[in-house]
């Protein structure tokens, strides 16, 4: 069993106070996770000892940097069980990964009248890129609805997933409801109608074991910063045959084989999609984050979050006027989004901040989801491997304080 108090010792930031005399209670890991010492040190070490551009120089530093950069790719590939490291493309974040696929695959493959299927619980990052490419290609975007419990309405899937569907892009775990979607089942259904699949794994890769071969998905995207790694780097996994057939997304250095004044030919995978000098220190940091999570064990992390989520949902349901969004603890990851009767989420979050409690308030980049629920937004507490039951207790006390301030 994971001991969160031991884990916490690895995260320097968790020792700080939110305000003078008020300890920090960080319940916003779904927005971004905190970083363990090992990640910070790995990046620091890179800059102090072997900073150089990758794949270019023939000197010692360049060799070391290239080895570390490609080593990080190997580690990430193993972490998600990709068949080969060349199928892992480093990008800036999940958003960029999805834009890459929407633009490169989408522009080459979508025709007027084709359908792009998303779900109503998507983050804007898996929504806007498709709306843009649909507009350019004359394709249609459709949305698989969610039920009042915050689950995908699978009974209606045949109505939305048809032979007109060319791509089905969906989240593995909702960043608002926390719903863990049946990825494998959705991928199988999509393939049965000849559609390709993209999994937005921004919330699943940090929180549960992910095996792209078992899932069978064509593309899978995630960000390092939500999994104890740095900002500015993420990964796109894609099946080799699809990536090979796709035109480049960004042009520039590194992604070419040969350039002439008349035109260019492309580098091989994965570098074909990595134009320009990449985020080298960040890749090293991501590699260290993966190593850190691996050492603890994704099963252990998932079990701990399940325990905390269960505990939190039970405690929060006792708060008068509080309504939880999304399914029960058994069907969701470490996310508790809620509304407090009569109060705007920003007011709730602001009072909680005075108590040192960091939560997210607003639409969490899921405006359509909140519109469907008729809400301007919600307040969201989210949990990770370092979250303790004592922190959840503080949240509950903090919410009492909110109700006091607003005379509820």
């Amino acid at each position, binding site marked *: 069993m994971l001991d969160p108090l031991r884990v916490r010792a690895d995260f320097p930031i968790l020792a700080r106070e939110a305000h003078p005399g*008020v300890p920090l209670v960080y319940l916003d890991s779904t927005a971004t996770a905190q970083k363990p010492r090992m990640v910070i040190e790995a990046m620091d070490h890179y800059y102090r000892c072997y900073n150089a551009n990758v794949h270019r120089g023939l000197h010692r530093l360049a060799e070391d940097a290239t080895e570390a950069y490609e080593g990080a790719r190997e580690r990430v590939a193993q972490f998600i069980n990709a068949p080969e490291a060349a199928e892992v493309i480093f990008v800036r974040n999940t958003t960029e990964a999805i834009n890459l696929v929407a633009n490169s695959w989408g522009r080459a493959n979508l025709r007027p009248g084709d359908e792009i299927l998303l779900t109503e619980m998507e983050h804007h990052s898996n929504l806007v890129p498709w709306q843009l490419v649909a507009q350019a290609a004359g394709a249609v975007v459709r949305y698989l609805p969610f039920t009042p419990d915050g689950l995908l309405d699978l009974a209606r899937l045949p109505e939305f997933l048809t032979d007109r569907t060319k791509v089905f892009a969906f989240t593995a775990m909702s960043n608002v409801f926390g719903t863990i979607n049946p990825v494998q089942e959705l991928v199988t259904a999509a393939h049965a109608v000849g559609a390709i699949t993209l999994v937005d794994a921004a919330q699943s890769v940090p929180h549960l074991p992910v095996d792209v071969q078992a899932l069978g998905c064509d593309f899978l995207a995630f960000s390092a910063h939500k999994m104890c790694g740095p900002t500015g780097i993420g990964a796109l996994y894609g099946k080799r045959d699809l990536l090979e057939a796709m035109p480049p997304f960004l042009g520039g250095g590194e992604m070419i084989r040969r350039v002439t004044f008349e035109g260019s030919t492309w580098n091989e995978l994965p570098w074909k999609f990595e134009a320009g000098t990449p985020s080298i220190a960040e890749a090293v940091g991501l590699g260290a984050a993966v190593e850190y999570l691996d050492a603890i064990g994704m099963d252990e992390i998932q079990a701990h979050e399940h325990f905390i989520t269960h505990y939190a949902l039970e405690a929060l349901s006792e708060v008068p006027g509080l309504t939880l969004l999304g399914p029960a603890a058994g069907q969701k990851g470490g996310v508790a989004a809620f509304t407090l009767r009569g109060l705007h989420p*920003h*007011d709730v979050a602001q*009072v909680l901040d*005075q108590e040192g409690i960091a939560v997210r308030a607003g*639409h969490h980049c899921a*405006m359509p989801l909140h519109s469907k629920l008729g809400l*301007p*937004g919600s307040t969201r507490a989210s949990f990770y491997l370092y979250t303790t039951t004592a922190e959840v207790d503080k949240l509950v006390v903090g919410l009492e304080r909110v109700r006091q301030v*607003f005379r509820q």
Partner: protein
Amino acid sequence: MDFDLYREQIIELYENPLNQGVLEAADFSYEEDNPLCGDVIRIDARVDDQGRLAEVKWSGNGCAISQAAASLLTEEVKGLSLAEVKAFPKERLLELIGIPLSMNRVKCALLSLKVLKAGAYGIPEPEEMRKAE
């Protein structure tokens, strides 16, 4: 620790707003939302024959800051000329609110002023809308 962020006045106005409502025979009405927060403010105003605000009502919903600010603003601008409304300094409204606001919350606080100015300008010109912000 400063628990004074939500001054008594803000909470009081949030619960018992001033000048809330809609004017049937308004000389100008304007509404805008802040999609980021979901705050919505509409302002209706009647102008007398001297060109002064005779009556101002606001309606809408959102966070305590945006709602309290609408009460404070509508109270403050009664009797002002249209020219004075157009020149109403945002600093004055922030002063009336009287609590330190983070960058994000300033937008909530100033939504009602933006709406009032846009209304006062009549058909809003893009340039004037920017000034109103």
